[in-house]
């Protein structure tokens, strides 16, 4: 089994594997998203306090969760690349960053649209939204650092150190709600004592899985392009380029 793993750690081996995996995540993501959006916009009942505006939660919460989760995964792959000195781990980290940044952006924008009718303002400087904004800057910082360094290996390692350092911020985001008495409503999902109707919970979970699978599919796709770019000139890439239309 150990032998298999390390063979998989070469871009040449993983490239076709990633290609086969993508549809297995892309199609379920699309399906889950359809179901989730339908539930969110129509299936779930109107909220007593917030009216139909709460329906934004079906995008806002999953994207916020993903934004934090993806950062941790990116930091994890960074750690792997530092520990095992594998190119592929670094390429995975490189592939995640843009999608993570986009999830963060979606969380911020949808949170803003949710905030206006609910709390009367597009932007309340509460701990949760502000931390999400910081997370966006963290993502952009990793992306900026990568583009500022010409040597890909130095970029890999520098971005790994940076994302690991930033990862400390992610728990602070999560626990800041507990420490701060702010506008933002308390964490919406707690095991066992959910304040929401089951339908709403199911809808959020479906959308979370949809977002997760979507992120995996897009990341794998981007990782394949990164492999082609960075391994350009090597035998397997040349062979591939000749056969592809």
């Amino acid at each position, binding site marked *: 089994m150990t032998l298999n793993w390390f063979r998989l750690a070469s871009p040449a081996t993983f490239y076709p594997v990633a290609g086969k995996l993508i549809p297995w995540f892309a199609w379920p993501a699309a399906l889950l998203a359809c179901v989730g959006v339908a539930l969110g916009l129509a299936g779930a009942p109107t909220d007593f306090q917030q009216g139909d505006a709460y*329906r*934004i939660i079906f995008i806002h919460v999953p994207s916020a969760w993903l934004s934090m989760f993806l950062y941790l995964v990116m930091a994890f792959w960074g750690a792997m690349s530092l520990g095992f000195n594998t190119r592929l781990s670094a390429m995975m980290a490189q592939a995640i960053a843009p999608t993570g940044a986009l999830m963060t952006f979606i969380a911020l924008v949808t949170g803003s649209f949710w905030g206006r009718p609910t709390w009367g303002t597009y932007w309340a400087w509460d701990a949760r939204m502000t931390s999400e904004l910081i997370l966006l800057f963290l993502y952009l910082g990793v992306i900026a650092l990568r583009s500022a360094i010409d040597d890909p290996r130095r970029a890999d390692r520098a971005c790994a150190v940076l994302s690991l350092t930033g990862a400390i911020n992610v728990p602070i985001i999560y626990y800041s709600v507990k420490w701060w008495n702010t506008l933002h409503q308390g964490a919406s999902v707690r095991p066992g004592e959910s304040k929401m109707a089951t339908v709403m919970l199911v809808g959020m979970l479906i959308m979370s899985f949809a977002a997760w699978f979507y992120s995996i599919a897009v990341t794998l796709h981007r990782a394949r392009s990164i492999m082609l770019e960075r391994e350009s000139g090597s035998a397997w890439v040349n062979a591939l*380029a000749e056969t592809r239309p």
Partner: protein
Amino acid sequence: MNEFFAMGGYGFYVWSAYGVTAVVIVAEIVAVRARRRAALLHARIAGSDDARPAAPTGSVR
């Protein structure tokens, strides 16, 4: 149907949120596919330069 679009008066906010999300997701998918096309193109060019060094008479591939 009108009720659906009105979203109890919050239509602007709900549809803006869902709309921006849809736009961003589509944009990412388009960008990712474009990146792949560019990567394949560059790989092909790089491959042709290395795999087939130019003949003295500059033969066409």
